[in-house]
């Protein structure tokens, strides 16, 4: 077996405008997805929804900026899911992540 990370990209404006029933429909679909993964002989190791991109904070070197990582030539290269007391601690951890020539984005996980 090998492990794969599946990244979900979606239109935040559509999500923000979604009515409750549409939201519920998506939740049901994600539950169905979990069953389908098992049917295909796979396994979900972990999965989360993220808070919308305006809650993101980016770090390049020691510089902290508001907003998601604006990738120009960099591509998503990996991830850590960490537990931290607050954003200050999460940013301190983020600054420790070894990068050659890029940076990291710290985004809170959605809690339902």
């Amino acid at each position: 077996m090998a492990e794969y990370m599946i990244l979900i990209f979606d239109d935040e404006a559509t999500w923000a405008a979604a009515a409750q029933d549409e939201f519920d429909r998506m939740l049901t679909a994600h539950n169905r997805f979990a069953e389908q993964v098992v049917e295909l002989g796979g396994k979900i190791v972990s999965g989360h929804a993220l808070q919308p991109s305006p809650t993101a904070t980016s770090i390049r070197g020691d510089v902290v900026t508001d907003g998601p990582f604006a990738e120009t030539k960099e591509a998503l290269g990996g991830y850590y899911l960490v537990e931290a007391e607050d954003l200050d601690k999460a940013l301190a951890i983020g600054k420790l992540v070894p990068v050659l020539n890029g940076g990291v984005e710290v985004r809170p996980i959605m809690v339902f």
Partner: protein
Amino acid sequence: MPEPQGAADEVRSAVADAHRREWAFVLAATVRVAGDLDLAEECVQDAYLAALDAWTRQGVPNSPGAWLTTTARRRALDLYRRQQALRNKLPLLVEPEPSHGALDDELDSEFVGRFGDGGAIPDDRLRLVFTCCHPALGVEAQIALTLRLVCGLTTRQIADAFLVSEATMAARVTRAKKKIAAARIPYRVPETNELPDRLRAVLSVVHLVYTTGHTDPTGAELMQRELAQRAIDLARMLLKLMPDEREVRGLLALLLLTDAREKARTDAAGRLVLLEDQDRTLWNQEQIKEGSFLVTEALRGGQPGRYALQAAIAALHSEAPTYSGTDWPQIVRLYDVLMCVWPSSVVALNRAAACAMADGPEAGLAEIAELERHLDDKRDTSLAGYRYLPAAKADLLRRLGRRDEAAQAYQEALALTEGAVEREFILRRLAGLG
């Protein structure tokens, strides 16, 4: 029975005064109880409304701030209890978490009269300031939040000052508050190891509030004058709360010394008057005295910071009898030190202007040419589109009588300048070239 007019006016002015002086204290102390910025703001606004009525009936209390804080925190506690089930799932991260039972006792004992010394209510203003100026928020959001939450300005006032619509400003504030809650930006004063960086962000916000009010980029004068005053108030508050931070002292000194020249910066017709042509008798000597005293303290003890050095330069100008009688060699030396602690092309440009005064316009032009070369070969593009670069160059060329080149540089500066006052100045200079 209606109150006599005089009494009503007295109460209104007491409430207005308390709004100006105590807003930050009252809100900061209420946030801790409410655990939510919006809820806290609402409760504080209610407390100010309640004060109008209560103070009319019972007289203005000895400590209006304590009265307002207690009233706002009580209301927050009531609402907190009532709405607990309905509350936002993402409350503000308040550290340390207050025990609401203990808080209730604290509030009760406050009510039976521990008003006088104010010692019963924690001063949370620094928490509020550091939360508003958190680097994970965009700079514009930091400024907006500081003006709204620390200074108590309305969204409308802030929108007017920054020349955006009220809706745009409201969205900016809402988005910032959402991020604070969702990303869990803590409501606390940073730890010692983070403090220098975080304080730099706070001071930069206060400075930006001042410069927005000072430079009058497009001419909404009244609100911008208000901003300059608010920035000075903020710097004073920070110095009171952090008396050992030399850069806070340096910033307050810089703002006071710059602001001391405000009356002389424009003439009766509202036209810009350069430092060189200013009527020095219009300068506010009281502010200069206070600023100069603060500079001396801010420079003491180790490498001075950016604001202390800028303030020292401003102090030298303030103490000079005339423009030509200014200690220019000393100003150049201070710019050299400033370049070490805060290397930037804007500082280099100012240094070039000082060199021109110390060693003649040719020396200044040589420095400016160097900056232009860095700009052309893209080694440093930070001065691209910076209107004071061609303006400074034009001024030196004018002094040397190189009219055509001066005119060309003034035209470049004009193309980059939006503010009516500065545009008028450049046009006058152009006309003067003949």
